[in-house]
């Protein structure tokens, strides 16, 4: 069974994503921040991280960079709902969904997904990144 870690500061988002992926036969854990995610990755074997980009403290792009460095075999999907936040503590240089997702890809995400997504889009994306037939 493959292990997925879902990182999002919105409980409803991470719970619903976990619910769908649990049903699809994956073993899913969740984390509410990038810091928690990195600790969780150190504790348990993980094949895939699905991470939000706009999060307080450490944003998703920085989290992806850290994961790529410390856990190079872990696959990554970045998700974002977009929005123009201007210069905030989140990601001052990236102000649009496209920019967020582009910087996530640049940081090493294997796939990017715009919120909200459909059930089949989520499952297909996970299958694609983990390699079809491995699920």
């Amino acid at each position, binding site marked *: 069974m493959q292990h997925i870690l879902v990182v999002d500061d919105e409980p409803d988002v991470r719970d619903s*994503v976990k619910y769908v992926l649990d049903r699809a036969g994956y073993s899913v854990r969740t984390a509410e921040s990038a810091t928690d995610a990195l600790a969780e990755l150190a504790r348990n074997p993980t094949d895939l991280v699905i991470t939000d980009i706009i999060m307080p403290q450490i944003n998703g792009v920085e989290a992806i960079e850290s994961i790529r460095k410390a856990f190079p075999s872990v696959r990554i999907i970045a998700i974002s709902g977009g*929005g123009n936040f201007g210069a905030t503590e989140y990601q001052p240089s990236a102000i649009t*969904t*496209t920019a967020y997702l582009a910087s996530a890809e640049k940081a090493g995400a294997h796939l990017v997904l715009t919120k*909200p*997504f459909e*059930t089949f889009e989520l499952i297909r994306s996970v299958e694609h990144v983990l390699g079809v037939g491995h699920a």
Partner: protein
Amino acid sequence: LQAVSRAISSGDYTRALNVNTGIRELHELAEDLEAMRHELVGVNDRLEAKIKEKEISEVRREELQKQLRQHQRLETVGTLASGIAHEINNVLVPIILYTDTALQDLPTSGAPRANLERVLAAARRAKDVVKKILTFSRELGEAKLALIDLREVVAESLHLFSVLAPPTIEIRTEIDESLPFVRADATLAAHLLMNLFTNAYQAMEGAKGTLTIGLRYQEHPTVGRISQPHVEFWVSDTGRGMDSATVERIFEPFFTTRSVGQGSGLGLSVVHGIVESFGATITVESKIGVGTTFRIFFPAVARLEVVGALAAPVV
């Protein structure tokens, strides 16, 4: 001579002096006076021109200030709207995922399935509305700017629109035969044009009216902040027109003069977002009972740039 001298001293410089006199000194005096009158007339004309120039620059300044105010307000609304859009996108994730999985567990018929299908459809509609808001706040991820000939986009959109428009509306075109290229996304430009055509047709409320569509090259435009060579596109309708308060808010999202259910109030916000993403400028003129004209000024691309771009396509 005396009468004319008095007239000049009282400010009337229009009466010429009759210098036909025998006395030499008087004659010279009269000639001097006549020269003085000529000079005064010149000074007067120059002063009048200066005052007029000042009045024009005052009008221009006011127009620029108005544009700046509108721009600042739209920016604020845009930032606010996209913040809300982000929140709604997050809320839509559990709604879509849980509803969809619940549907997978339900029998193929029955009221719960039908109800949940409606929930899912509503969530997808909300997703589309959010997408429009993000377009307004310059979330134009798919915008691929390339050098395009606006005449082609206008011809295509017009063809589509003429099929949809009622026959009571007369469509006129005033299109220059040769135009420089502009930098834009052809699909988005077509979307923008269709929005403006639809808006114009709705302003005429299905009554008889004329829709005029124009394209021309403006080497030295004189509108607002635009001074570079531009390709001007305009859409004029003979509809009901708008007052200045409406004109000032026309590009704000959710601002609509139509009754509930007749329009989302997002069409012209999307138009504004697309225009900005092209680096173009949009203006509106309107008069109640006469009609409305939207003008878009696309910066013209110089011939030299076009040659370079053809060698290496712009993406």
